[in-house]
């Protein structure tokens, strides 16, 4: 996932970190090691460790989807849980009908994506907070709808589908097999999304978030990219719904209740908006914190969670993902004051910077 700059950067000496990353050993070795570690992880973890990890995977994917539309593209979505729920229902229904699992997976991705597309086509035109308003309606409508369409959804009794018992002869426990599925599917989704939010589409999403006027002058239709981001978020939501069924194996109207949508949003902010690693941390937060507060005092879970939320937001407004940066800044600040405080200026003394000589030192600061 690490981005590697292929282009030479003639005028700046590359920082040492990048050159380390470009060493073939590190470039190929690090991902391989990561894959190997992930491949072994399910075999060495305890059952409850694996279960927890798998659930983290489910919600990390859901938060990732939310991040695409909200963190990266800046469109407030309060309906992400609806797409998770839809994906879960499609999966449960397909499995109960005895459809091929691959087909079920494809449908669990596509149907939420189509639903997301239709919603976005209508909502993105309205702009501003309208998207947020429309997306609020999704889980609010989704819950009674799921109860009503009991022919497909099992009504308020929900649907169970156990289709992820470890295959005979694999030598795996169920929890190991499920974790492999989550790691595999979730890993691919993370990788693809990480690629997408860099480069052409990442830049387009970012400018739609920051300044729609500039976006459109660059040939980027804000409307189209909002719709695209929302559709991708819905698709990823559908994937997380499939994974939900892999791990939880049961879905009901409560799965998509509005409160969970807010919790997903909180998890995204806590993890770090507009960050791939932040999505992962968001998943950890979503899953681990309720378990943790339960361990402390089951009757005070919401209070403790609220306190933790405030604590993180006060200390790390950028989310957990900004922790290393915040620490580094603190460390840099404390010993040797303002080493990097002055704004950078063109390096007139740097040899090889041809233009620098044309510009006298005094005029460089502009209106900084």
């Amino acid at each position: 996932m690490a981005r590697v700059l292929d282009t030479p950067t003639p005028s700046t000496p590359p920082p040492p970190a990048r050159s380390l990353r470009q060493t073939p050993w590190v470039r190929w070795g690090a991902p391989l090691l990561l894959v190997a570690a992930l491949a072994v992880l399910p075999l060495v973890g305890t059952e409850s460790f694996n279960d927890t990890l798998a659930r983290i995977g489910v919600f990390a994917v859901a938060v990732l989807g939310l991040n695409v539309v909200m963190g990266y593209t800046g469109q407030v979505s309060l309906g992400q849980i609806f797409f998770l729920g839809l994906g879960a229902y499609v999966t449960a229904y397909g499995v109960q009908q005895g459809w091929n699992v691959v087909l079920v997976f494809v449908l669990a991705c596509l149907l939420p994506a189509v639903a997301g597309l239709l919603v976005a086509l209508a909502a993105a035109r309205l702009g501003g907070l309208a998207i947020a308003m429309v997306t609020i309606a999704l889980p609010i409508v989704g819950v009674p709808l799921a109860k009503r369409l009991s022919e497909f959804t099992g009504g308020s009794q929900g649907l169970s589908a156990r289709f992820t018992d470890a295959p005979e002869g694999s030598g795996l426990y169920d929890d190991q097999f499920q974790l492999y599925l989550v790691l595999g599917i979730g890993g691919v989704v993370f990788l693809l999304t990480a690629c997408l939010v860099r480069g052409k589409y990442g830049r387009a999403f970012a400018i739609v978030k920051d300044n729609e006027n500039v976006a459109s002058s660059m040939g980027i239709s804000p409307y189209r990219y909002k719709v695209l981001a929302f559709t991708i978020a819905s698709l990823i939501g559908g994937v997380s719904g499939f994974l939900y069924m892999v791990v939880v194996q049961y879905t009901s109207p409560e799965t998509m209740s509005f409160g969970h949508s807010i919790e997903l949003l909180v998890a995204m902010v806590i993890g770090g908006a507009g960050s791939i690693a932040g999505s992962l941390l968001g998943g950890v937060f979503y899953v681990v914190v309720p378990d943790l507060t339960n361990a402390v005092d089951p009757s005070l879970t919401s209070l403790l969670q609220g306190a933790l939320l405030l604590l993180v937001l006060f200390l790390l407004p950028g989310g957990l993902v900004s922790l290393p940066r915040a620490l580094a800044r603190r460390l840099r600040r404390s010993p040797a004051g303002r080493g990097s405080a002055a704004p950078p200026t063109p390096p007139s003394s740097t040899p090889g910077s041809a233009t620098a000589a044309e510009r006298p030192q005094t005029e460089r600061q502009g209106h900084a």
Partner: protein
Amino acid sequence: MAGGLTLQDVSLRFGGVTVLQDVGFAVEPGQILGLVGPNGAGKTSLFNCISGHYRPTSGRVLIDGAEVQGARPATLAKHGLARTFQHPALQLRATVLENVLLGAHTRLPGGALEWAFRTPRTRRAERELRAEALALLERNGLGWAAHLPADELSHGLHKGVELCRALLMRPSLLLLDEPAAGLSHGEVEQLITTVRRLRTDDDITVVVVEHHMGLIAALTDRVVVLDHGAKLMEGTAAEAQSDPRVIEAYIGKDAAADDAA
């Protein structure tokens, strides 16, 4: 690439307020046209009519003979129109290079799926345009800043970055909205060199809104003077500066402003 621009009787009204009244002029491909006038004369509104951010109430806008009034900005961008903004709108936390690369958007092939899978085609295109963006920054004296976050640069440099971003679009027609505002003297000199080179090297048609008369005089082939939303005169910069109507428009404004103060 051509880049000829023609405006015919363009009017713009917001409710009962007339912002522009029957403005018309033509810019030949490769020319540099200055758009001047006192504050509130309608220069930026006219700009927005050309770039598609506003839709003219009546009249026609033609780029290379094709009517484009009412087309969305994103569509116009694909037809070779680029613009900068009065207040440079950069993504402050992204690097300068990433900011400039935004201009490459319409030139990068491939859909979302291709980019998610990083197909060879998208990787090659990204690599090539990254190199081109760096070269462009180099050429405009900003190569040293390519990997810095934009918010570490001064206002003047932001304008340069924004120009590079517009240029990476390979426009045939470039609209510059007050490019000299807030620049130091030296930066203005640099800007003049850059824009001149756009015409000679890249054959880009430029329309520039500016108060800085020195820049207008040094750069433009012709100027159009706007006052109260209507065209006051059209001619060379020297003609405009000596035209009594223009002087009156400016002086009158200033005098009125002095009275009010």
